[in-house]
C-alpha cells in the first residue's frame, strides 16, 4: 500500500507555498513564470492525490486539462515576455508598469 494521502497533500502545500513565495520574491519575469508552473504542479499533485483517495478518475481528468491550459498559458506568457524584452531589454517586473494608472 502506498503512502497516506495526507503526506502527498502536505508536500503539495509545501510546493505551492514555495512557488507563491518565489512569485513574490523574484523580479525576473521568467523565474516568476516558473514559480507559477510550480504552483500549478502542486495543484496537480493535489488533484491526483484526491483522485486516489476518493477512487475517482475525474481528478486525473482535471489534471489533464490543467496541463493543456498550462501549456497555452506558457505560450502566450512567453510571447508577452519576448515582446516586452524587445521594447526594453533587461526589464524586470517592476519596470513594466504602463497600466499602473
Amino acid at each position: 500500500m502506498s503512502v497516506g494521502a495526507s503526506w502527498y497533500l502536505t508536500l503539495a502545500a509545501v510546493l505551492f507555498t514555495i512557488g507563491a513565495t518565489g512569485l513574490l520574491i523574484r523580479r525576473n519575469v521568467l523565474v516568476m513564470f516558473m514559480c507559477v508552473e510550480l504552483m500549478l504542479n502542486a495543484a496537480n499533485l493535489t488533484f491526483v492525490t484526491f483522485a486516489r483517495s476518493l477512487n475517482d478518475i475525474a481528478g486525473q481528468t482535471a489534471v489533464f486539462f490543467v496541463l493543456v491550459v498550462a501549456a497555452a498559458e506558457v505560450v502566450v506568457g512567453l510571447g508577452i515576455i519576448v515582446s516586452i524584452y524587445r521594447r526594453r531589454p533587461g526589464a524586470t517586473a517592476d519596470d513594466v508598469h504602463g497600466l499602473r494608472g
Partner: protein
Amino acid sequence: MTKVLAVATIPDAITFAIAAAICVVGAFGVVLARNPVHSALMLVMTLFGVAVLFVEENAQFLAAVQVIVYAGAIVVLFLFVIMLLGVDRSEAIERDPLPGQRFIAVCLGILGLAEVLLLAHGQWPRGARSVSGAQGSPADNVRLLGRSVFTTYLLAFEVTSALLVIAVVGAVVLARRPRRALGDAIPPGADEPLDGSPVADAGGEDAGGEDAGADVADVAVTGADVAVRREAEPQAVDPEAIDAEVTRP
C-alpha cells in the same frame, strides 16, 4: 514517520521520501537560483519528482504526459526564451522599489503554509461523487482516463482544442515584428492608427517628435511614399528629409 511505515510498504515510503525531497529541493532551486537557466533546470527536477509521485499514485498516463509535455516541451520553451533574451539577466537587488517586500513575502508564505496545514486537520464536506467513475486498477488507468475525457468531458476537450488554437495565434501575433509586416501589408493612406503603436516607435525613440509630425503629414502621401519612409524609419530620419519627401508631389 513510523506511522507511515506501518501503513505503507517500505519501498513505497522510500520512493515517496526521495521523490518528495527531489521536489522540494528543485522548488527551492527554482526560487533561489540566480541564473534563470539554473531555475529552469531545477524546475525540470521538480517536474520529474512530481512524475514519480504520479506513478506512485496510479496515474501512469499523467506521469508520462508530465515528462513529455512539461519537462519536454514547456521547459524547453522556457530555455529557448531565456537563451533568446540573454542569460545574464541578474536582478538588481540594490534598487529594490519596495524595501522589505521580500521579508514580508517570506513571512506571508510561511503564514499561508501554516494556515493550509491547520485547515487540513478539519473535516471538510466532500460533495457528490463525479459521474466519471472509479479510478480502477493501475492497468486500467489509460483506458479509464480516455473514457472519461472522451465521453464525460468531451465538450471541455473540444473547447480545449479551441483554446490551444487561440493561444498559438496569440503567440504568433505577440511575437511578430510589426514594422516589417506593416510596410508590406498596408493599403495607401490607411496607415495612421497602426503607425502610432508603441512597438513601431521602439526603434527610434529619440525621433519621437519628428515621427509624430511626419505622421500627421503622412495622410496625404501616396502609398509608395509610405513604403519608402517606413524603410528609412529605423535610422531616426532627420526632419528635412521627411519634409522633402512629404512635399514631393
